Structures are given as structure tokens and as C-alpha cells.
């Protein structure tokens, strides 16, 4: 029952409101229990003794919360203890870095692939984090040159952290990632372009510089075409190994499918395999693949056919003829293009002929693809079709130039006619006004 004190307040504890006092006591107990229950948990979540120490260290030992911010593992809630073991909730080193806490510390390079695979090869575990990621990286790695050499004890070879990073691992589709397609060559080049580092292996170290001069690099890095190949496209990523002699054409034809089919249908495939030559790279090289020109084929300067063929052998003549046909068609297309451009600049509409000329360009492209059969009878039909189109467009260009000339002659006559009319009008005006003046003068005299 409420009672009011002299000040008019609603109730007064001193007057013994037992039920209210009980309520307040109960609330206080509940709050204390909740605090005692949640506080340790909150403390445990935010507490990371590893970072507390390592953020104050320098050099390779320095790891801060900021540096971990972008790391994909940290974002998924996997902290230091996930790889290094230990107890991050304790500041006491004897506890946090104890064997009881399964502290592993700095990892041996030989252990890194298996350590990463503990999660990354566990399909059930990865399904809960990123179901689309593959889980065969470790088995691929074991099959790679890097994996095989690591198994033999060579710790200089690449392990997971060398390519993916350590505490700043980004997803492969992040443009800042060291394994983003545009960055892969530079990542591989960290070792493979270091002549001093690679001295013991007796393999070239110019792959990166050669690749950077290639058309593939231009497409990938300068034009941003992510489908263009980089090191891992041809060599594999986790299962990295140079493709074998017989595999080169297969590797190239994953993208250059038609050229691969043409090559397989021609006489070079068997001949190259017999000679132990690696398919496509025999003519196009491997790392410094440049945009092919018609000069690549034939018997002239820069022609690769001369690497094997000599004058008089079965391939020498056809190589020469194929080169001639390609250059003839190219010259005919340029000639038609020039005349049509001149006609267009002269003001004659030649859109249809220019469109038709594109058919000849298509025929040229087809011929340049079929050249991989190295068989004259294969490229002849396209060359002939292209030449036919260039002849028609050349005639159209000539007709257009003639039309332009006719129009200008017509204009000349028209302008001459207009000038005559203008002169006539001027003379008529002069006569009229002379008559008017003389009529006015007669009136004044009268």
C-alpha cells in the first residue's frame, strides 16, 4: 500500500515497502550473475595476446591488427592460433605458448602444405566457409615439380605461403592478390626471374622478361583481358610443371582450339613428335609469343619454316607458295581499302563495298588459321574467295571514284551556268536602270 511522505513523493522505502525492496534486490542479483557469465566470454573474444606482443615487434615478427584486416582468414574468424596453435587468451607466455596449448610457433617450410591442407583439403570444412573452392590443392602440389622437390628435402622451392602470402592472404579474385591473374607472372618471377636464387637448378631465368614482351602479357595486363594466359594457365598452379613435348599443343588449344585441330590434321604433328619438338612452341616459342605475321611462314627473312626445311625439299615450295598467297590477299585487301577510302573522302557513299570488303578480311583470317594444316589445298579456297571479293570491291572503288569525278564535272557545268545567269541578270538590271535614269532625265527636262 503506497503512502506519501511530507514532500508528496509517491512512495517511501523507509516506510517499509517490502515488495519494492525485494524487486530491487532481485534485479541486482540477476545483473551480477549476467555480468559474471558474459564478461569472461567477451574478454576471451576480444583478447589476442599474440597481437598484443607481435604488434610491438619489428621486422618479420611484426604483425598488427591493421595488417590482418584484409586477410581472408582473419575475416572468416581464423586467428593466429588456427595455424600457430597456442592460447591467445593468456598474456602469460608459459601458458599461451605451451605444448599443452599445442603451440607450434614458426612453422617449418616442409610442414606448410600439410598445415594449409588441414582445412583446405577438408571438403566438409571448406563447405561451411567457401563451397566453391577446390580441395585438391595438396594432391596437385604433391604431383608438381615444387612438391616433388620439397619431398626430396629442397626447401628453396615454393610452398603455399610463397605464392599466397602469410598474414595478408587475399582471395584469388581480389585484384590486390598475388595470385590474381594479372599478378601471377610477377609472383612466379620472384624466384624464377632471380638468376642467383635459381643458379642451382640449371633452368633459364628469362621467362618473366620474355613473357612481359609477349602478346599474352599485352592482352592480360594492358588490355585487361583476364582470359589471356599467364604462367599458371599453361604450367598449372598447384600442380605446376612444364607441359611435356606431346602436351604443348593440347595446352595451347585449350584457347586456340581451331588452330590446334588444324595442326593435328596436318603433317607437322607426327613429324614434330618424332623429332621431339613441342608442337606450337616450335614455331611460336613459349614465353615470348608475339603476334604472328605472314613473314613467319615461307622462305624469307624471319620465316620459321627455314628452321627445318631447305631448298628443294617437300616443304620448301609449298611454304613459299603459302606465304605468297597470304601476302597477295593482304595486298589486295589493302588496295581495295585504299581506293574505297579515297572514294569516301571524295564524297561518294561506299558503305556497302566497305562492308563487303570485311568478307575478304574474314577469308584472310580463315586462311591464317588453316595455315596450321600446312596444306595448300586447305587454304586455297579461302584465298580464292578473298581475292574474288577484293576484285569486286576494287571495281566498286573505281566506279565510286569515277562517280565522284562525274559529280565534280557536273558541278563545274552547273556553276558555269549559274555564273552565266548571274551575268545575264546583272546586265538586265543595268539596262533597266539605265532606261529608268534616262526616262527620269527626260521628265525633269520637260
Amino acid at each position, binding site marked *: 500500500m503506497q503512502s506519501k511522505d511530507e514532500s508528496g513523493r509517491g512512495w517511501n522505502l523507509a516506510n517499509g515497502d517490502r515488495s519494492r525492496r525485494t524487486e530491487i534486490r532481485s534485479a541486482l542479483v540477476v545483473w551480477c550473475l549476467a555480468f559474471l557469465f558474459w564478461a569472461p566470454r567477451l574478454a576471451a573474444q576480444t583478447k589476442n595476446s599474440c597481437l598484443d606482443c607481435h604488434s610491438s615487434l619489428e621486422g618479420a615478427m611484426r604483425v598488427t591488427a591493421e595488417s590482418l584486416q584484409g586477410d581472408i582468414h582473419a575475416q572468416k574468424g581464423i586467428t593466429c592460433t588456427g595455424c600457430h596453435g597456442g592460447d591467445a587468451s593468456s598474456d602469460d607466455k608459459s601458458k599461451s605458448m605451451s605444448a599443452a596449448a599445442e603451440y607450434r610457433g614458426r612453422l617449418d617450410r616442409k610442414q606448410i602444405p600439410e598445415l594449409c591442407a588441414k582445412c583446405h583439403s577438408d571438403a566438409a570444412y571448406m563447405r561451411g566457409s567457401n563451397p566453391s573452392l577446390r580441395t585438391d590443392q595438396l594432391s596437385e602440389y604433391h604431383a608438381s615439380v615444387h612438391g616433388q622437390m620439397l619431398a626430396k628435402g629442397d626447401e628453396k622451392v615454393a610452398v603455399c605461403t610463397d605464392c599466397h602470402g602469410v598474414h595478408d592472404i587475399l582471395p584469388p579474385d581480389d585484384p590486390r592478390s598475388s595470385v590474381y591473374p594479372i599478378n601471377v607472372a610477377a609472383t612466379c618471377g620472384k624466384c624464377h626471374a632471380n638468376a642467383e636464387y635459381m643458379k642451382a637448378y640449371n633452368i633459364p631465368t628469362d621467362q618473366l622478361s620474355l613473357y612481359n614482351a609477349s602478346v599474352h602479357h599485352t592482352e592480360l595486363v594492358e588490355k585487361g583481358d583476364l582470359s589471356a594466359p599467364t604462367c599458371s594457365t599453361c604450367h598449372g598452379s598447384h600442380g605446376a610443371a612444364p607441359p611435356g613435348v606431346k602436351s604443348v599443343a593440347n595446352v595451347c588449344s585449350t584457347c586456340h582450339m581451331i588452330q590446334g585441330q588444324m595442326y593435328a590434321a596436318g603433317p607437322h604433328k607426327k613429324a614434330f613428335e618424332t623429332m621431339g619438338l613441342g608442337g606450337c612452341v616450335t614455331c611460336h616459342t613459349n614465353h615470348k609469343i608475339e603476334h604472328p605475321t605472314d613473314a613467319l611462314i615461307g622462305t624469307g627473312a624471319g620465316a620459321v619454316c627455314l628452321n627445318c626445311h631447305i631448298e628443294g625439299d617437300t616443304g620448301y615450295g609449298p611454304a613459299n607458295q603459302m606465304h605468297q598467297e597470304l601476302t597477295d590477299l593482304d595486298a589486295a585487301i589493302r588496295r581495295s581499302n585504299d581506293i574505297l577510302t579515297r572514294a569516301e573522302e571524295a564524297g561518294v557513299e561506299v558503305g556497302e563495298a566497305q562492308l563487303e570488303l570485311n568478307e575478304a578480311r574474314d577469308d584472310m583470317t580463315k586462311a591464317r588459321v588453316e595455315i596450321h594444316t600446312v596444306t595448300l589445298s586447305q587454304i586455297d579456297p579461302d584465298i580464292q574467295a578473298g581475292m574474288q571479293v577484293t576484285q569486286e570491291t576494287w571495281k566498286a572503288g573505281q566506279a565510286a571514284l569515277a562517280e565522284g569525278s562525274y559529280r565534280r564535272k557536273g558541278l563545274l557545268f552547273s556553276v558555269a551556268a549559274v555564273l552565266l545567269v548571274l551575268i545575264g*541578270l546583272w546586265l538586265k538590271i543595268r539596262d533597266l536602270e539605265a532606261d529608268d535614269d534616262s526616262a527620269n532625265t527626260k521628265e525633269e527636262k520637260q
Partner: protein
Amino acid sequence: MNALANIQNWLDERFGWDELMAFVRHKTVPTHRFSYFYFLGGMTLFLFGIQVATGILLLLYYRPTPDGAFESVQYIMTNVPFGWLIRSIHSWGANVMILTAIAHMFSVFFLKSYRKPRELTWLSGMILLFLVLGFGFSGYLLPWNMLSLFATKVGTDMAAQVPWIGHWILVFLRGGDDVTGATLTRFFGMHVAVLPGLATLFIGLHLVLVQRFGMSVPPGVEADWKAHPEKARELRFFPNFLLRELMAWYIALAVLGCLAAFKPWELGTKADLFASAPAGIRPEWYFMFMFQTLRFLPAKIGPFAGDLLGVLGFGAAAAVWTLLPFFDNDKRGRGKRWIAGVGVFALAYFVGMTVYAYLAG
């Protein structure tokens, strides 16, 4: 000669031919140092005639549909005998006609020919100028190439800036929310039916008013002639002035022919409704000064959108300019001098902004 006399008699009995000829014979044109500007109106009329004649010829082949428009123009340019000439003359003629219309308007402004009693002549002339600009805008879309598609899109977007009714105007112009085939059909209808009908009406009115009130003499010359009547000079309209006008028309025809032969109007690439705007899209030169002004205006001016204020500003300026005779009603008949200053500024702004827009790319 008897046959001619018979025809004249026949016409006179029915239409008052002799009376009309008497009027034409007695009509005179003042002759002074500014007389050459009198040719501009007739030149615009002649070019309008050229547009009608070439337009009718183009109508024989043109197809106003998204599938047929570009191809029909291409056909006219490549397969129709002298189609290239007719099409280029029509396209160049439009630009030259707009130029002479603007020049005629400014010459009437500076010579103060809009003064009493010629206010309605000025009004009808301004309406004709807007109709001519409408011809230019509607005709620009008809070849259905990428430039014309996006220029129309930008131009009609401006209409949406008008407060309250802007969206309605946009939908009315485009036949929908976007520039599509419906827009092409609508613009074609306006270009070949609505605008020519209105133009014919207002040209007729304009010519009647010009004949009714005669040719205006500039205030300075008028005052000089009042003080010195012996200085007043006149030229007979028929045949003296008309022969001179014919000379100007032939020169214009020769210029159009040269433009058609040496700089034929380009076909461009066919409009693609799904493509993004090509770089450097801009309207035709007669709208460039407005386009450039809107580019200069910031996105926001106070609480208002910059474009909105720009469009409203131009609208207000056009309204004031159209109603000019009612502002410049100086009782002495000479007109207010400061209005000439406004005209100089307007002309300089128009020319300067247009040149700047082209130089700035």
C-alpha cells in the same frame, strides 16, 4: 500575245489580276546603306522552297521506321539517280536556311523593323524562327544514325526539365519514355505534316503583313530623309529588286551545289538503341550555345538544379525576345537605344558560345 492577253483577262475577271499586278508594279523598296539586309527574308523563303522541293523528292524513297530509315537513306545516297545531290542539298539547305533565318531576325532587330505598326510581323517571324528550329530538330533524327539518335535523346531530355509538365512534354515528344521507333514516326509526322502546315500558315501571314506595311526604314535613315527629302531613294520591287533577289538565290543555289559535291552529308552508322552514347555527342550548331551554357552551369544552384534554371532562363529569354516590340515602344519612334546593346550581347553570346563549344570539343 493574244493568248497571253486572253489568259490575263480570264484571271482578271476572276481574281483581280490587273489590280494585283498594279500593286506589284507600284511596290517599292527603300534604298539605303542597309538595304542588303532586305534580301535575307527572301533568301530564307527561297531556301524553304528548296527544302520543300527536295523533301518531297526524298519522301518518294524514305521509310520512317527503325528497320528502314537508315537503309532507305543509304539507298537514296547510293542507288537513286542524283539521290546523293537531293539528300545533301536538303541537309545543307536546312542548315543554311536556319542561318539566314537567324541572320534575318537579328537584322530586323538591329534595324528596328519591329516598331509600330510591324509588331505582328515580328511576332509571326519569331514563330517562324521557332518552327524552323523545330524543322531542324525533327529532321535531324530521320536518318536514324547514332549521332542523331543520341542528339535527340539529349535534346528531349532538356524538355523534361520544365517544371510540372516536363515529363508530359518528354513523353509527348518521344512517344514514350525513351527515344525509340515511336519517336522516329512521331518526328517524321511533325517534320512532313504538322510543321509544314503551320509554317505555310505563318509564312502566308508574315508575307501579307510585310506587303501591308511595306519595308521598314531604319530610324537613323528615316530621320535623315525627313530632314533631307532629296536623299530618299527607292527601288521598284518588280522587276529591279526581284532581279537582284534572283541573283542572290542563284548564288545560294551554287553554294548548296558545291557543298553537296565537295562535302556531302555523311550517312554515319545505323542507330543502335542498346548501345551507349558515343563520345562527343552534341547537338547541331544552332543549339550549341544552349548546350554549352548548360555544361557550364553547376549541378546545383542553391536549392535548384542547374539544368532546370538554364532551361527556364532560355525560355524566359525567348519569351522576352518575342515580345520585344511591346518593350521597345519609344514614343519618338526611334526605339530605346539600350535594347541595341542587349542585341549585341545576345549576338556575341550566341556566336561566342557556339565557337567555344566547337573549340572545346
